[in-house]
């Protein structure tokens, strides 16, 4: 019998252009306390802790071990870390709970983009033989994808601008968002992408608590049950992929059961406007689905936390009864190379 596992609490920082006055653990700790407070749990009650982050962002070696100061890791706790977005840390925690080794898990992630140049930092994740020596920055690669979509007739610059405008308008209802309201579309950063097509650069952190079965019902009035979760990856070579499609997102969604019944909400991790176009098509989201009511990654994009935040935002909507069945998506790598899809549901009301 498969265990039922739910997101029972979610917390995040206000996302800001810079948190230079705080170290990573100083930025993260209030979020950890916030998410624990929502369940009444203490760190000692948590069965498994898993985090996602990248030391490259802030250039601070082993920052993830220093961040552990914030969870109170003594006496020794069961703990793991992925050098990925926190959504993948959540996936690991979910599998841990499935084994029955733990009943609760704390998942957190953080990203401090402000100390470095995230456009350049992300070049270091590319193929080191054929691609990284050219230093193609993250906006340039997203722009190649956007142009491919425009050439294919899937979108145009006005439609892309509308994605950004809708996201930032929705973000006015999100007190944690960094970029909200009417934001000028701006000049080209790398054509065809303009400032408004790109995510804000900023720092932030997020945390989620998972719980299994009855424990979830004790900790949360309306748990967001993870009905399915899966992640898939495509080839790393950009020239091998069809950049106008996302077969990995589609397959992850299929394996997560997303196509079995319609969802009412989708939180998509699309840092660039054109990527929302790709994902809507791959995930078969029509106009009836509320996409990124939080404002999404175009309103706040703490790298390594932005995917986990999508799961948290979707879960929080279920917690407060604004959604019954939601899809949450996270991405990693250039041009949506790797994709994770989770399907969350609330108990019938």
């Amino acid at each position, binding site marked *: 019998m498969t265990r039922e596992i739910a997101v029972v609490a979610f917390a995040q920082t206000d996302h800001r252009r810079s948190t230079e006055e705080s170290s990573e653990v100083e930025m993260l700790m209030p979020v950890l306390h916030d998410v624990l407070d929502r369940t009444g749990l203490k760190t000692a009650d948590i069965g498994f802790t898993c985090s996602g982050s990248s030391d490259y962002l*802030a250039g601070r070696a082993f920052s993830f071990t220093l961040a552990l100061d914030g969870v109170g890791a003594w006496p020794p706790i069961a703990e793991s870390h992925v050098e990925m977005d926190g959504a993948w840390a959540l996936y690991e925690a979910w599998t841990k709970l499935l084994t029955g080794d733990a009943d609760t898990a704390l998942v957190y992630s953080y990203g401090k983009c402000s100390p470095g140049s995230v456009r350049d930092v992300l070049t270091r994740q590319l193929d080191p033989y054929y691609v990284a020596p050219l230093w193609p920055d993250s906006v340039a690669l997203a722009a190649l994808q956007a142009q491919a979509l425009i050439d294919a007739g899937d979108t145009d610059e006005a439609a892309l601008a509308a994605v950004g405008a809708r996201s930032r308008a929705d973000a006015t209802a999100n007190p944690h968002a960094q970029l909200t309201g009417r934001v000028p579309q701006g000049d080209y950063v790398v054509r065809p992408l303009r400032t408004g097509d790109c995510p804000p650069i900023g720092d932030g952190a997020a945390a989620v608590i998972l719980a299994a079965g009855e424990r979830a019902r004790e900790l949360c009035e309306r748990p967001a049950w993870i009905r399915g979760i899966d992640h898939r990856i495509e080839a790393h070579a950009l020239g091998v992929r069809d950049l106008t499609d996302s077969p990995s997102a589609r397959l992850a969604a299929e394996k997560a059961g997303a196509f079995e019944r319609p969802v009412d909400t989708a939180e998509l991790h699309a840092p660039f406007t054109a990527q929302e176009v790709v994902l809507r098509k791959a995930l078969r989201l029509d106009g009836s689905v509320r996409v990124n009511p939080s404002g999404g990654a175009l309103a706040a994009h703490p790298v390594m936390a932005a995917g986990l935040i999508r799961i948290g935002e979707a879960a929080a909507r279920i917690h407060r009864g604004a959604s019954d069945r939601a899809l949450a998506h996270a991405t990693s790598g250039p041009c949506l190379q790797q994709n994770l899809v989770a399907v969350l549901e609330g108990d019938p009301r």
Partner: protein
Amino acid sequence: MPEVLKAPLVVEFPFTRSLGPVQSAFLTGLRERVVLGVKTTDGRTLVPPVEYDPVTAEEIRDLVEVAPTGTVTTWAWNHEPRRGQPLAGPFAWVLVRLDGADTALLHALDVPGPDAVHTGMRVRIRWAEERTGAITDIACFEPYDGEPDQPGGHTGEFENPLTGIVAPARLDYTYSPGRAQSDYINALSAQRTVGERCPSCRKVYVPPRGACPTCGVATWEQVEVGPRGTVTTYCIVNIKAAHTANLDIEVPYVYAHIALDGADLALHARIGGIPYDEVRMGLRVEPVWTQGARHPDHYRPTGEPDADYDTYKELL
């Protein structure tokens, strides 16, 4: 709030990477102005070539030469090139499917402006003057309106094939240590050592990191500790430091954990002013400051009687 401390931080590393047989042939080929692809078992030609089929993961080794001419499959106009990118002036990023290939290669296209580039346009490789066996042996692409070049049928066998590359990487940061460590560093510059007490377990952490690692709660109550302390444990260093800042230190020397009076965590520092073989657990020490320094240069014996083991055994 006091001023946030900041300092430039450059992380630089030359990655030395070995090459597989396909990568070696491709990069050696670029050195010789030959572009090689690799055939998959379903008959497609991948350029740039990889060692394993991206779909089936089969090992693929069947090299085939392709033309230095090709077609742009997508592009992006880069009006403000960044450090390390192929061209210093504005250029287009392009994916190019070379004639004879089924997949596209990422590179730069040298054209005067965005109006001079479109998907489907014909381009050819402009070779770098000096070639070493790297993707940058292709200086960039340039517009080309001639017939497709015929590939030469090269087998991929070269004299002196490359076996590895050195890929330099450099990232620039502005480092800021955060609230607790800034306070610590600011106090040190006034020759004071200031830790922080955990509100829960009452332990005093030096240096403070803003959180109690045992309780997982924020620390903020500042506690001045030392300046004197006790050696809790130590080691004798016999290897001369490679770092330039430490070149003046003669070996052997002693590096020790020191529990400053009032602190619940030992910090570490060099011990001087005493022969290395006379340092011992329980030795009482004090900091020695040099002119203008932001931290003690080393610690030296105070001359007090050694501390009783029971006074520091919890701090080992």
